[in-house]
């Protein structure tokens, strides 16, 4: 039924009026957003504006309080159990800190979704994992190491290999370049662009690194105080006509966005 819906020209991902609060703190105040098939959307915004929460709502790691989330036209807002796993199998995610399983070897990390999620035999999954590692520029002997033995940049690459291992239709990137030096950040950006192109996947990334955003985005959306305040083509971000966007992409302390510097 999912594939039938997929061919009907629905947007790949669509959010309508998604809200979420934690205790008294309203984090998402009605997010409306659409991502078309094969597009790369980058969501920019300062810390604590709700970027990660929105991503986790789409992934089903958090339940939104209101609104709806559709993937390929299918309402996934309140999916549970098997149905949720089915949708999840079509998605991949690169976590900010890599989130590699430190009890497993590098190749077992990459092959995890294949072995546990899809029930593939270990030998076959291992071959695929090694191929995916090669795709992100890591040699086969890295596969035998444990994640703790890797540098930050290598961990990110392994995380990327894991995210693309099951050939997902949608890939999410949570601050893919945070904590890396500028050169390694660019390497990761290149890898993301290359891998996504090879897979033909739809991607949604959140970042506050404008260099990264310019490199990987087809479209850019800016989130501020739990709402999407601007949405447009990546090339238009420099003349958006929106003061908030201007302030953010130029990194100015003065402007309509006031950072909360006093203690909460």
């Amino acid at each position, binding site marked *: 039924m999912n594939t039938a819906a997929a061919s009907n020209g629905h947007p790949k991902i669509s959010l309508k009026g998604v809200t979420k609060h934690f205790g008294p703190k309203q984090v998402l105040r009605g997010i409306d957003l659409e991502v078309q098939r094969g597009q790369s959307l980058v969501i920019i915004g300062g810390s604590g504006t709700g970027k990660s929460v929105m991503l*986790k709502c789409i*992934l*089903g*790691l958090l339940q939104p309080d209101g609104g709806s989330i559709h993937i390929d036209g299918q309402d996934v807002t309140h999916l549970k159990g098997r149905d949720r*796993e089915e949708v*999840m*199998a079509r*998605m*991949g*995610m690169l*976590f*900010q*800190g890599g*989130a*590699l*399983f*430190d*009890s497993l070897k590098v190749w077992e990390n990459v092959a*995890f*979704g294949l072995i*546990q*999620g*899809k*029930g593939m035999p270990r030998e076959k999954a291992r071959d695929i994992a090694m191929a995916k590692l090669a795709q992100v520029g890591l040699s086969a002997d890295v596969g035998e190491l444990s994640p703790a033995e890797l540098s930050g940049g290598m961990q990110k690459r392994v995380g990327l290999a*894991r995210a693309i291992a*099951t050939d997902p239709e949608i890939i999410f990137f949570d601050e893919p370049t945070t904590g890396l030096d500028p050169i390694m950040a660019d390497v990761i950006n290149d890898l993301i662009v290359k891998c996504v192109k090879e897979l033909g996947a739809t991607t949604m990334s959140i970042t506050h690194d404008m260099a990264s955003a310019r490199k990987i985005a087809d479209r850019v959306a800016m989130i501020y105080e739990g709402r999407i305040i601007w949405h447009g083509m990546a090339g238009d971000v420099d003349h958006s006509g929106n003061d908030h966007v201007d302030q953010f992409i130029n990194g100015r302390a003065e402007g309509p966005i006031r950072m909360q510097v006093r203690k909460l």
Partner: protein
Amino acid sequence: MRWNFLALIGSVILQFFGAVGRLAMFTGKGLLHCVTPPFYPRILLRQMLQIGYYSLPVIGLTAFFTGAVLALQIYIGGARFNAESLVSSIVVLGITRELGPVIGGLMVAGRVSAAMAAEIGTMRVTEQIDALTTLSTNPVKYLVAPRLIAGATMLPLLVLVADVIGVFGGFVVGTEKLGFNVGIYLQNTIDFLHMDDVISGLVKASIFGFLISLMGCYHGFMSRGGAQGVGRATTNAVVSASIMILTANYIITELFFAQ
């Protein structure tokens, strides 16, 4: 001022019932995933090794000295008459019925539930648990169910070992230090060794093992807020597992084995 006081009572009660509810839901989910496929035999095996095999030195040492000191105390306290049969019978009864399961449980609680809470808590704060979900793997099934099964099956085996070593500890002190006759001591031990006592100890041990794993996993899963949160989860896991073992021990004895 008075309203604040009432509000305080209210919020404490709400928090308490919230915690009880969360724990009950977590236990239910954990049990459900123990009996529904897919199963993870590799992880189950690793946990059994972790809980069972690697706890053997700790269990052996504590059981030996517990048996030894029990023999010594009984001799000092009740040596007026018939010391030989008294010491050996109390050692075998005390170890198999109470001290084996309880001391074994407490030692494993300190070792295992802390390790579980720290491992799972770290996985929580580094988003590894979220990563499991995104890789189409249910974290409760993958992390909690194998640990619950391993806890409930391994602790009885450990307690069986503790029973043997504990009785041996008493035997060593009885025959070497207190000068009892080896043959008579052994005969008395065998006379007072009842299958029911051993089994009641093992049933308790299985429940304690389950509680140890449950507390380790629960506090690990619920941990929030970086290194400090993981530290708190570890402490809470050990403390709550220990309290639960002692409480459950009384309840089980009262309900099933007090006749």
